[in-house]
């Protein structure tokens, strides 16, 4: 009695999977190459200038003005994780229903270096790349009449 039930369950799972109703995907994304910790440790406020930092880290992702200072952001990403998607075709209702779950390990990381007018490193900040780019983005000035 157990065997027919198991076979039925297996067949149902197989049918759902073959019709692409259930898919599990493991994805990994690598973007840019992270610098070594040793290189990062060499770059300290008051001790490094712009060219030293460019030579050590290469070209940054972002360059922008921060008042009188210049801010450069380097970033890299290594993300990996599973996603599970359940999709249900609803042809008679004119669409599809789907549910996705994804978990990922580690996101983008980055370092921000800020330089004064003499191009000396004055501040350094490390963290999540999204935070470094978004939180520190200057607010747009309101339009004037």
């Amino acid at each position, binding site marked *: 009695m157990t065997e027919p039930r198991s076979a039925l369950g297996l067949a149902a*799972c*197989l049918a759902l*999977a*073959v019709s692409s109703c*259930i*898919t*599990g*995907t*493991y*994805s*990994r*994304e*690598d*973007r*840019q*190459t992270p610098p070594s910790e040793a290189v990062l440790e060499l770059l300290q406020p008051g001790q490094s200038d*712009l*060219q030293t930092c*460019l*030579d050590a*880290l*290469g*070209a*940054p*992702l972002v*360059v*922008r*003005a921060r008042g*009188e200072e*210049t801010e450069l952001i380097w970033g890299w990403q*290594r993300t*990996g994780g599973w996603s599970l998607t359940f999709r249900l075709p609803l042809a008679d209702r004119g669409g599809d229903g789907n549910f996705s779950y994804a978990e990922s*390990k580690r996101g983008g990381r980055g370092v921000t270096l800020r330089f004064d*007018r003499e*191009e000396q490193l004055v501040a350094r900040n490390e963290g999540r790349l999204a935070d470094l780019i978004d939180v520190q983005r200057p607010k747009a000035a309101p339009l004037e009449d």
Partner: protein
Amino acid sequence: MTFLRSLLVASALLGLSGCFLSRSDVNEPIPRDAVQALKPGETTAGQVTQALGAPVEVVQLGRRSAYRYEYERIKMTGFFAILVGLRGVDQRSDRVWVFFDENDVLTHVGSTFEGDRAEYELPYLGEND
């Protein structure tokens, strides 16, 4: 009978699997020798654009400025069986920032050449790095 069943399942798994490789490039590769020929203190913004073409971004830094040149290569790899799939994306760039003073003379160059290091790679299950 068990052997035949296993063979049937294995055939179904193989027959219902698929894989893909894709590559996409954004912009043209940056000529490394042209970047190495740039001389801070001598090269002007006009000479830079003659050598490298139009930048993808221009940033005003007070009275100074910086240009960004970028070439990006993305390689994707995928393998999909009945229930599970594996997908790998490797994105690398050639990127150059050139900085100019208020007279449009080159002051600094920062360059990264990684575009040709992008690889087709399937992720390994259970990796923890």
